[in-house]
Each structure stands twice: as structure tokens, then as C-alpha cells.
């Protein structure tokens, strides 16, 4: 039987990135996504959870990363929340700008946007960032 929603609460450590990606792939497979689409979902989930663990919660294991997957009429929806200080996504430097090309980091958001059909960021009223992503069928 197809499970319509799933929620995870993971500790803020690097291993949670792999855990979230594996769970997302298992969940998305039920919707019949092709291998390339599953790869895109995997990439986006890893980047989003890595951001939440590293930049949001700053590897503070007392803070969780909350993740929700949902099958909807639009496709596969994901919501990922951290409990950090939040940030303004518009202020993140464009990593494809020539002056940023040789920087070691800052490409996660670019990948999330490249691999998903919709990505939105919201500051939660009680702190932290919520990322909502959609992969269409």
C-alpha cells in the first residue's frame, strides 16, 4: 500500500544527510519516478539537509532537522525545517558569478533549484528555516 506522508526527525549530524536521502528515495519510488528523477530528488534532499545540519543547526545535536514527505496531485513534496537563526536566501551570493567561481562552498541552493521543479524558503515564526520543494510527476 502506498504511504501518502512520512515524517522524520533527525539529529544534526552529517550521517543524517544519508539517512534522509535514503528515506526520500524509498518514498519517491512509490510514485514511479524514473531513475534520473530519483537522482534529482536525492541530490536536492542531500543539499537541503546538509544546509539544515551545517548552516542552520550548526551541527548542534540538541537541535533536530524535521523532514516531511508527501505524495500529492502535484508530485512529490518535501518540507525540511531546521532550528537555526534563519537566513535571507536572496542574499546568498550567486556561485556562478565569475567572482565566486573559485569559492569552495555556496552551491547547495543552486543544486536544489536545478534539480527540483519548485523550491521555496520561509523563516519560521519560532526560528529556523523551512524549505519546501516539489518534484512534479
Amino acid at each position: 500500500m502506498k504511504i501518502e506522508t512520512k515524517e522524520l526527525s533527525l539529529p544534526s549530524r552529517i550521517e543524517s544527510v544519508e539517512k534522509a536521502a535514503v528515506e526520500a528515495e524509498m518514498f519517491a519510488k512509490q510514485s514511479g519516478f524514473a531513475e534520473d528523477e530519483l537522482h534529482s530528488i536525492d541530490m536536492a534532499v542531500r543539499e537541503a539537509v546538509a544546509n539544515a545540519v551545517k548552516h542552520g543547526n550548526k551541527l548542534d545535536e540538541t537541535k533536530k532537522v524535521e523532514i516531511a514527505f508527501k505524495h500529492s496531485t502535484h508530485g512529490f513534496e518535501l518540507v525540511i525545517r531546521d532550528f537555526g537563526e534563519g537566513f535571507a536566501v536572496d542574499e546568498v551570493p550567486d556561485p556562478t558569478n565569475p567572482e565566486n567561481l573559485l569559492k569552495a562552498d555556496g552551491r547547495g541552493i543552486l543544486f536544489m533549484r536545478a534539480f527540483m521543479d519548485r523550491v521555496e524558503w520561509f523563516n519560521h515564526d519560532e526560528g529556523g528555516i523551512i524549505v519546501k520543494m516539489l518534484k512534479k510527476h
Partner: protein
Amino acid sequence: MAELNLTERQAGDVTILDMSGKVTLGEGSVALRTTIRRLLGDGKKKILLNLGGVGYIDSSGIGELVSSFTAVNKEDGTLKLLNLTQKIQDLLAITKLLTVFDVYDSESDALSSFE
């Protein structure tokens, strides 16, 4: 898939690193960084990264390739890439890093380019 495995071989004064596994946040990225630092410390400044066996790379791994490139350049060395999979090529295109890296499909062509 295993974390990153790195095998080193020498072709003249060029050091080839055959990479297999994953270059991702955590151990994979650290393994590459440590190896590049050691090679530079040993005076090996012509480095060819063979990514043919790398099945997965994330933004952290891409960042590590960039860091390797800049670390080698800083020592007046040269770092080039060999055998990119289609997925890695796509990521380098998205990030516009294909304009930065010297990329080869043939090991002999890559080795000749160092001369």
C-alpha cells in the same frame, strides 16, 4: 557505494589519482583534501584526477574539487580532470566550472597537455 577510494600512480612527472566511490560531505571530501595536501607537500604539482569511478558527487564534493584546484595553482602547479561521468559533467555545467577546469576524456591526451 563505498566512500571515496584514491589510488595513486605516476606517469612521468604527472601524478594520476584514480578516484572511485563518492565525493560527498564528510569522509569523501576530507580524503581528497588530505591526499592533495600530501602530494603538494611531496613536491608533486602536476596532478590528474581520474573521476571515472566516481558515481556520486554533491556540492561539497564539487567544492573540494575547486579547493584542490586552487591549492595546486597556489603552489604553481596544475590540476586537471579526466573521465567525467555525464552526471558530473552536468554538475560542472550548472556551476559554470567547466570554464575553470581543464577536462579530458583520454588519459594520453591529458598527459600530453601537461608537457
